[in-house]
Each structure stands twice: as C-alpha cells, then as structure tokens.
C-alpha cells in the first residue's frame, strides 16, 4: 500500500499539483464548462479555444482541488492542445477506462507520447474513491466541447 501511495503521488504529479500549467482564464475561449465534485466540494473551470475545424487551439483551467485533480487538469490542458475534438474524446474514453481499471493498458497508437503522461495518473486505479479526482477535468473538458456549461462527477 505504501508503494501504491508512492506510485500515485509520484514526482510528476506532485510537480503538476504544486505548479499547475495553463492555470489561468483564457480570454478568447469559445468553449468553457464548470466541473463540480459534490463529494468534496472541489470545482474547476476548463477553457478551450476551438476553431472551425474542431481543432483545440488552446486550453486552460482554473479552480481548486487536491493534488490529483490539479495535476490531472494541468496535464490535460497540455495534452488536448493541438488535437481535434474527436481525438481528445477518444483519449478521454481510454483514460477513463484506464483509471477505473476497465482496461489495463492504452492501445499502442499514434498517441503514445501523450499516453506516457496519462499513464502516470493511472495509479488512482488502486484508490477507487479518488478516480473522480483524476477524471473531473476530463469530464469538464468533454462537457465544454459538447456545449454543456456545467458538469458534475455524479
């Protein structure tokens, strides 16, 4: 269990948790959504700039939460930038399944580079109560591109 905790709270996560990247409001965002985790009261806002080809030009977020949710949101903004909406929805689906233990590994495909980052988060598998912390930002991003302004992990 100590090992599981160490795996979950590894350097990369602690670093992103402490110094989240793209932690700001995006002035020219055209998609945004609020995510709530009613269990813990944590909330965050995801901002996206999506062009007419459904390509995500820029991503940022603001909010408060635990190290896991902050790190996950931070990494997500890095990953989704430069991808199309359908690509990030594909990644979300796989990431979600990885966190809940539905799949063991990411498929080997063109996203191998991003997948390395996401794999870091998959330590939450050992902590079912914390899966929502890891996936909140992704749910929120998904709501933003789908045109929902509010989402919740429930």
């Amino acid at each position, binding site marked *: *269990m*100590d090992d*599981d*905790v*160490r795996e*979950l*709270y590894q350097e990369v996560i*602690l670093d992103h948790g*402490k110094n989240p990247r793209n932690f700001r409001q995006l002035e020219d965002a055209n998609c945004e959504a609020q995510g709530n985790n009613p*269990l*813990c*009261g*944590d909330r965050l806002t995801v901002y996206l700039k999506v062009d007419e080809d459904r390509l995500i030009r820029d991503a940022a977020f603001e909010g*408060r*939460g*635990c*190290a*896991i949710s902050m790190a996950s949101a931070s990494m997500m903004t890095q990953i989704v930038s430069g991808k199309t909406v359908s690509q990030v929805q594909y990644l979300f689906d796989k990431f979600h399944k990885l966190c809940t233990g539905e799949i063991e590994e990411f498929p080997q495909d063109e996203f191998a580079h991003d997948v390395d980052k996401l794999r870091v988060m998959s330590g939450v598998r050992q*902590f079912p*109560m*914390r899966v929502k*912390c890891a996936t909140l930002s992704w749910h929120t991003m998904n709501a933003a591109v789908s045109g929902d302004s509010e989402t919740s992990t429930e």
Partner: protein
Amino acid sequence: MDATPSNIDLQRSNYDVDAIRADFPILASEINGYPLAFLDSGASAQKPECVLRCMDDVYRRSYANVHRGAYTLSQAATDYYEGARKTVARYINARSDDEIVFTHNVTAAINLVAHSYGRRFLQRGDEVIISQMEHHANIVPWQLLRDEIGIELKVAPIDEAGNLLLDQLAEMFGYKTKLVSLTHVSNVLGTIVPIKKVIDLAHERDVPVLIDGAQGIVHTRVDVQDLDAEFYAFTGHKLYGPSGIGVLYGKKDLLNTMPPYEGGGDMIERVTFEKTTYRDAPARFEAGTPPIVEAAGLAAAIDYVDGIGVENISAHEQELLAYATERLNEVDGITIYGEAQHKAGIISFTLDKVHPHDIGTIIDSRGVSVRAGHHCAQPLMDWLGIAATTRASFGMYNNKNDVDALVEGLNYVKEIFS
C-alpha cells in the same frame, strides 16, 4: 444524573479503554498492513459486540413484522421494538414512550418536523433561526420549506473560535420568529452549543426549539425534561448503534397536533376511500414497516453506553482532545479550526499546501481513517474561507496510539509533499 466532578475523576481513573476496545471486533483489523486507527466516529461510530449479537439474535430467534400478527414471533419482535422505545425514552428522560418517534436517521427526523410541524404552523414570512455551523441536514429541509411556503431563514452568527454569539442570537427574535433549529454540537468545529440557554431565550419569547442532537447525544448526557426543547433529534449509527434508525423526541401534546408526514400502514385508525383517521403519536409518524431490528440494536447500544456512562466517555474524549490538540500543534503548517470554550472530541484542521483528500488517502495507507471534505457543512466552510478540512473525531474506544498514528501519518504526508 449529573456526576459530581470528584465522582467523574474517580470513575475516569477506572476507565478501561483496552477493555472497551476489546468489545469492538472491527478495532482488531489491520488496514493496509497497519493497525486500524479509526478516527471517524463523528461520521459513524463502530459497533460493540453486544449490538451485533443482539441484532443477530433478533433475526435468528425473534423476527417477524411488528404490530400485525397474532402469533408468538410477531409478539416477540414487537416486544423488542417497543422495548427499544422504552429504552430511548428512559435514556433521554422523556415523560412518556409516546414521545419517541423512530425514523430512519436524524435527517429524516428534521424533515419530519419541517414538513409536518412546518406546514401546519408556519406561514409565508415566518422566520426560522438556524446557525452558521449547521449540517446540511438542518439547512436544506428549511430551504425546501422556504421554497414551498415562503418562510425565511435567519442565520445566527458565531465568533472566530466557533462559539455561538448568544447576544446576537437574542436580537434576532421578532414577532415572526416561529422556530429555532440548532445543532447541539458542531460536527466540524466540535463546539458544544449552550442549548439550554438558547432554549430559555426562545421560550421567553414563546418560540419552540428543535435540537439536532446527532453529535450532541454522543458526547453529553441529554435530559429532555431539563432541556425542555420541543424536539430533540438524533441518529443511531453515531451512538454505536446500527445505521437505518433515528429518533425524533417531541413533546406529546405537540406531536398530536401535527399532521402525518408519510401515509401508509400502521399509522391509521380507520381507512375508507372517503376519509382516513390517524393514530396518535408516535404511530402517526411511523408509516410502514419500521426499522425493527435496528431499534433493538439501538437499545443495545444505549444500554452499553449507559453502562460505561456518557460522562466517563466524554471525560476520556476530553483527555484525547487535549492530547491531540497538543500533538497536532507540533506539526508544522497545521491550522486547527474550532477553539470554542466547550468542545467535544472533534478536531478539524488543514495542513499548508496539502489538500485534505490527499491527506486522507495517504494516511489511510498507514491505517488511519479520517474524514476529509466539507463535512456536509458548506456554508460553514465558506464562512471559514476554506473548501475542506481534515477531521479526526473520537469515540469511546480511541486511545493515544490512535492520535500518535495520526501525527505519524501527517509526517508521512509532509515527507511525500516536501
């Protein structure tokens, strides 16, 4: 039943926490390879062997539905159920068993009052006074009533330490004040509210009072005749009893003026399609098959608590609270929330730069169970200007090792986050 101070000292020296721990089977567990340090009794307490055995016995030997069958087993189950009502009545010194309504938890008890008493006696513009440190269970039912009939909610303030500001509360009463609904003990700050004073204040103005005793009855002796509150509500699972049962104490005459809350079997006198008449309290408020075995379990828990003496339990918890406060203050970056003059065994804190959820997960890996979050008291959290705290709460079975495990766990958190 007030123990004199010397009496308490005498008894406390005999307080055998090891013997008590041995009565709670779950405390022998290992969690993630470490001995369990259970510090979340404020959310729900563990159960002693006698409660488990009692419930098992009822199911094995005395189970049937209550009040319905003219046969031996139904009578046996009814005896357990009605016997439990007697035990509760005696424990809180009610005038009559009829003043004890069994519900599913304290939340249901408060909703019962809001719906039944509220709809009958409150009108648009009437005011209900609550406090800044209520659990959502004593906020949301009044908001539902507000949305439905247009009452107003007034919130009594607290000071930085978490003391209820009685003078300001006194000034909030007006001719439209129709009810005060207040927690006995704050589940976040640990504040023991001087409810007797509040009840007296309210009664001077002819205003009835409901006390949310979910945390209060666990840490203090409750004598409803001495308190004189119109309603006192609590929940079984925090009092070492099973989940699924709560109690609403209400003054009998008042209960019998209130309309039913839920309709169904067991609460009626006579039903025709044109008109139904209702039984008196408590049956009027107990529609459908009640929590039979849970009632028996609650009575066993109360007998157990009473055998040890709630004054002794609370004295033991005070020692732990003092020890925990001292040890936690040694940890760099800790802020403790709640420093009221009178505090129960509940201690909420934050640790610089670490979110309570991360603390919860990490110290659980060392066997320590604490609650992390907003504790169903978001308005209080907003007032404190924080999103969440970590909360350790003590039960009769906790000891200094549990506190030490907590402090060691926090040091491990700091190591990871350093």
